[in-house]
Structure formats: structure tokens, C-alpha cells
């Protein structure tokens, strides 16, 4: 069978891809949970994280090759920098492109067009200001095979992604389940009117939800950029795939976004052993259509209210 050859490799690669999709998908799903809208400009949040991480590491590392503890510190710094960049752009996005529309009860499509406009604005401005060529982030660690499992080589880079993603996912899960902010998010997602009657400040919750999604997306941008470089058009494809993953898992559902991301990553990598790379997207959308026809609300179903 074509997908049993290289099976373990496909799983390892699929998990690495999947974690990045998951981090981006969470941004979509969180915003969808509280606002019922697709944040089309999330791709630019991702890109901003990539650039933020690049500028920070470029300034610090330059041309040296760090080792050991310095590597670890730099990776963390890059992730934090990327997250900060993403969070900032998400915050501005919500204030400028979404809040005014919310205040006027604008139609859903107006939100969508405003998001598209914000996306056009942000990535083209980035292209104008930072140049149109791809730049690579100076590597904070030496990439090599750390260990092998069932014949698949696990590189340092994959480990970094997996560990970083898992840490962020656990933090997010705790945040949503335990903290006051998390309760606020769940309340707004479930029933905003009642939540506001109960004293929840909806504006602030929504803003903070955007920021959290931005932190995750920005960190994903940095992690992605570590291996693939940073460029002004980098947001479009990963964000599209991540949105597909969010829908696949059940939009509005946090665990669904993670599951969808991982599943999509693995499914893509498995299918590529059977069909060529040039059919990869066809496969991804094919999977999506089949899932939606069978289970229109995604694998885990759509919801956020009941603690994901």
C-alpha cells in the first residue's frame, strides 16, 4: 500500500505540520466562538509574528551559531517575540476593523470584507516596508536528527515545534477552563446577551480573545519562519489550510481545532506518499468536503461554550 511505505515519516512530518496548523487554527476558532465570524486577516497576524521573530533574532544572533542553553533561550525569545508581534497586530485589527462594525450591527459580509481589506493592507504594507524577498531567520540551534523512531528521523526542529505547541496548548486549555478570562470567553461564546447581563464586559473579552488568538498565531509564524523563512506573502496558504483544519475539527471548538490541525497535517503527508505533491491541496479539500457532507458541523462539532 502506498501509504504504508514511509508511514512513520509521514506521521512525524504530519505532526510537525499539524502543530503549526493547530496553533493558527486556534486563532480562527477562538474568534469564531465569540463573534461567529471568520477572521480573514488572521493570516497577517501569522505573518507579523514571523517578522517580529525575525527582527529580534536577527538583531541578537547576526551570523553566530549559538549552542546549548543560549539556543534554548533564543528559541523562547523568538517565540515570545513572534507571539507579541501577532498579539499586537490582532489587537489593532480588532479595534480598527471589527469593533466599529460590531457597534453598528453591520452584516456579516461587511466584517468579511473589512477583514479582507485589513489583510490586503497589512501584507502589502509589509511588502512595501520590509521588501518583497524572503529572508531567513538566523537559526538559534543547529538542526539535525535527534533520534529515530520506526525509521523516521525526528529533527531538532520538529521537537521544537512539538514542545512549544504542546506548552501553548496546555496553557490555553488551562486559561479557558480555569481563569476568569476563560470563563468570560466561554460565557460570551455561549450567549453574549446573558453574559453581559451578568456583568461580563463583552468588548474587553472580545479584544482579549483576539489577542490570545494573535499570540498563538504569531508564535506559529515564528516557528514556521524558522525553517521556511519570512516573506510578506507567507500568511495566505498556511492560514487557509489552518482554517480548513478548524472547520474540519468543528469551528468554535478548541479541541476540534487542535484535532483538525493534526489530522489535516497527517492526512496530507500520508496522501502525498500515494499521489504527487501537486495534488496535495486537492486531497486536503477533498477530505474537507467529504467530512462536511457527512458531518456538516465538523468532527467534534461546533461549540465553545461547554469548555471546548
Amino acid at each position, binding site marked *: 500500500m502506498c501509504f504504508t511505505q514511509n508511514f512513520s515519516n509521514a506521521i512525524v512530518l504530519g505532526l510537525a505540520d499539524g502543530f503549526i496548523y493547530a496553533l493558527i487554527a486556534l486563532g480562527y476558532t477562538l474568534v*469564531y466562538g465569540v463573534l461567529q465570524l471568520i477572521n480573514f486577516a488572521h493570516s497577517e497576524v501569522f505573518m507579523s509574528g514571523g517578522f517580529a521573530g525575525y527582527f529580534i533574532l536577527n538583531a541578537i544572533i547576526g551570523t553566530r551559531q549559538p549552542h546549548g542553553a543560549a539556543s534554548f533561550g533564543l528559541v523562547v525569545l523568538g517565540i515570545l517575540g513572534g507571539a507579541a508581534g501577532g498579539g499586537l497586530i490582532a489587537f489593532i485589527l480588532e479595534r480598527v476593523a471589527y469593533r466599529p462594525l460590531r457597534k453598528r450591527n453591520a452584516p456579516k459580509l461587511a466584517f468579511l470584507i473589512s477583514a479582507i481589506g485589513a*489583510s490586503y493592507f497589512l501584507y*502589502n504594507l509589509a511588502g512595501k516596508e520590509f*521588501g518583497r524577498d524572503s529572508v531567513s531567520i538566523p537559526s538559534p540551534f543547529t538542526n539535525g536528527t535527534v533520534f529515530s523512531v520506526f525509521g523516521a528521523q525526528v529533527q531538532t526542529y520538529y521537537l521544537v515545534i512539538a514542545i512549544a505547541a504542546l506548552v501553548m496548548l496546555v496553557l490555553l486549555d488551562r486559561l479557558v477552563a480555569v481563569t476568569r478570562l476563560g470563563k468570560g470567553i466561554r460565557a460570551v461564546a455561549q450567549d453574549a446577551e446573558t453574559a453581559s447581563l451578568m456583568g461580563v464586559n463583552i468588548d474587553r473579552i472580545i479584544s482579549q480573545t483576539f489577542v490570545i488568538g494573535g499570540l498563538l498565531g504569531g508564535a506559529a509564524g515564528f516557528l514556521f519562519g524558522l525553517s521556511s523563512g519570512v516573506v510578506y506573502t507567507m500568511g495566505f496558504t498556511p492560514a487557509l489550510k489552518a482554517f480548513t483544519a478548524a472547520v474540519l475539527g468543528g469551528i468554535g471548538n478548541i479541541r476540534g481545532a487542535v484535532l483538525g490541525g493534526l489530522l489535516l497535517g497527517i492526512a496530507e503527508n500520508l496522501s502525498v506518499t500515494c499521489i504527487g505533491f501537486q495534488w496535495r491541496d486537492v486531497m486536503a479539500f477533498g477530505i474537507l468536503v467529504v467530512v462536511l457532507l457527512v458531518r456538516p458541523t465538523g468532527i467534534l462539532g461546533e461549540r465553545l461554550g461547554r469548555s471546548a
Partner: protein
Amino acid sequence: MSAAPAGRLELVRSLKTNTDARRLFACLVGGLVLALMTGPSGSASAPTSGFTGSILNPRVFGFLGFGAAIWLLMTVRHRFGDRIRAASDRVQASPRRLLPDRRLRYGIYAVVLAIAIVYPMHLSGFWQEVLVDQVGVYVLLAVGLNVVVGYAGLLDLGYIAFYAIGAYSAAYWTGALPIHPFVHLNPFWAIPFAILAATIAGVILGAPTLRLRGDYLAIVTLGFGEIIQIVATNLTGVTGGAQGVIGIPHFSIHLFGIRYAWGINNLPYYYLLLGFVVVVLVLFRSLENSRVGRFWTAIREDEVAAEASGINVLKYKVMAFAIGASTSGFAGMLTASKIAFVEPGDFTVQLSILILVLVIFGGMGSLPGAVVGAAVLQWAPWYLREHPILGFQQQDIYIYLGALLVVMMIFRPEGMIPSRRRRREIGLAEHGVGHADALSGTGPGPVA
């Protein structure tokens, strides 16, 4: 002494909530952003040079002044709003309400048509080219997508797929593709086949997927658009692959003694396009006012109620989809035959999104809106290129378009020339009554 600090804090707090102050802040920031947009560019090795060149520079005062001027205008409108609004409402009303006399309205349409026929003859070759390739084709695409998005309320993000199908049909029926039909046609006679192919594709895509709710439909149509592009690129034996196919003949008629061949001159294509657009506009206007149009409105405003009233929702959704697809197919066929070349790299998802932008900018659900919106947004970049203001550069056009869209949606989400019904829907929603479109009404979520 203790009163002063408290007073200052109070001042800051009151400034934060004072709408005039907030508006001023927003306008000044907007001025800065405008300065940045029109300023010099940076590069990866000098990322701050664009910022410093645009903002840490005397020119920034001009932009701040501009922002302040806008603030002044907005505050005046806010203060004396009611009187101004009443006057502007009268101006914005749709043609039908403005000119209830049917004969007068038709007269004006006739005048507009006459201008549309005569004026292009006096334009230079370049502006004729812009009129056909940029304005004309996109007006047709916007009008077609308007049926899908505006009338039936379906979010289609893969509209360019039908355009591609029309273009490849042109290539196929004229024998330019690696696979050949049983008879080679001149593309003029292949027009109905292209339209048919696109329509069938619309039905094939629509039938299984139009059951899905708004956002899901969006992602599926987006996927379909990408799939068509990928298939066209990969099936080299069928579509010619990434290099495309060259040598599609131009339109020509050779019938009953009438001989006419389109060449590379733009005017004949313009008139063909104009004819088609007029037919389509008349058709769509009558559709809008027919039973089918009312079914579409019902589906758009409240799908569940429509279904409960006995309307076969799926059938009419698929019909809207197919009609939109057919228009797109014709546009693709025309462009392919005019350029005599087709390549898959042109049928991008970004183009589908652009057409959606044109429709909503112009006014979703409104025919004059779709026409004017598409015309303006397609003409403006080329006009600005020829007459640049404030250091405008053609490659920055999407920065301006993006900013324009955000501003438009904040101040005028119904679009430039909204349909009367949409205006009412949005106006009511603004005051908390009902929802502005079918997409907003589903699922839990905040209203305010």
C-alpha cells in the same frame, strides 16, 4: 493641592470617553497611516527606512493636517447630522424611487447607453484596453457574482473557477488544447458551449454543497476554486499544463454573407461585451423582480422560514449558482479568445476574492452597484498610474484598496449604490431589529 491630580486623571478619563476626542485621535492616526502608505519603501536590510522616511519627515505635518481636516468634517456632520442626513438620503435613494416616472427613467438609461456606445470611440488605445480588459470583464463578473452573493446570499469564494472553465472551453472547442473535440468551432459559435460548461460546473458544485451553511460554503467554494487551478496546472495532457495554450483564434462570424472578424482592436470586443452586459442586466433585473427573485430574497433573509413556507431552497440556490457561473463562463471565453492565450496561473483564489470585493464595495444585491463598484475599482488604479498623486506607485495599489475597504465597511457597509432592500435591512439591524443578512442570524453570539 489634592484636587489638581484628581482633576488631571478625570480629564484623561473623560478624554478617553469623549467621542470627539477619540475621533480626533483616530483621524490623526489615519493621517499618519496615509503618510506611511504614500511614503518611501523599505527593505529587509533596512526595515525602518520606510517608516523614518515617511513619518520622521516634514511631510508628515501635511498628513496630520489632512487628518485634522477630516475630523472637522466628521464632527460637523455629527453635530449637524440630522439636517445633512435628510438631504443626503434624498440624493442616495435608488433610481426607482428618485424617478418614479418610468418613461423618465428609461430615458435616462437610454442616454447612458448612448454615451456608453459613443464615448469609447474617442478614447485612446490604452483607455479602450482598460475599458475592455479591466472594466468590462470585471463588471460582467461582478454582475454575475452579485446574483450569487447579493440575491441569494451565498458566499462564493471560488468564483474564478467558472471563468477558468469558460476560458478552457474556448481553447477546447477551437482545437487549441491537446485534446480535440469532434468538430472545431470558431470561438464565437463556441460561446454557448462555454456558457453551458460553466453552468453545468455550477450545478455540479452547487448541488452537494449548497446545503452547507454560509461560512462552510465559503471554504468549500474556495477549495473548488483552488482545485480547478491545480487541475488545470497538473493535467498537462488535457489542458496544456502550466505553460498554457497559445493560438486560440479570435471571434469571427461568417454567416449568410455577413463576414466579421474580431482582431486585436479593442472596440469590437467592447461592443460585444456591452451587448452581453445589457442583455444580462435586463435579464437579471427582471429576475430580481420575478417570483424567483422574491424566493431568493426570502432565502437570503431567513432560510428556515423560506423552507417552511414551501420554497425548494436547494433548487433556487443551485439556480442562482448556475446563473452566476454562466456569466463568469462567458467572461472567461471572451478574454481567452481576445488574448489568444490561456494559462492556469491567472485563475487564482486572490482573483475570486477581488471580485467579491468589487460586488460588496459597489453594493451587494444591487445591479447598478455591482456595475459602478467594479468599474470604479478597476479603473482607478490605471488612472492613478497615469496621473499619480502624492507619490502613488502602482504596485502599492492593494494597500490603498485594503484601507478603502475597511473605511467603506465602517461608514457604508451597504456599498456605494445599495439596493433599497439592503439599505433597509442594514438600517434596521443597526437599530437592533433583525439581522442584516442570513449569515448573521444563525448560531449563538452577540448582537450588540
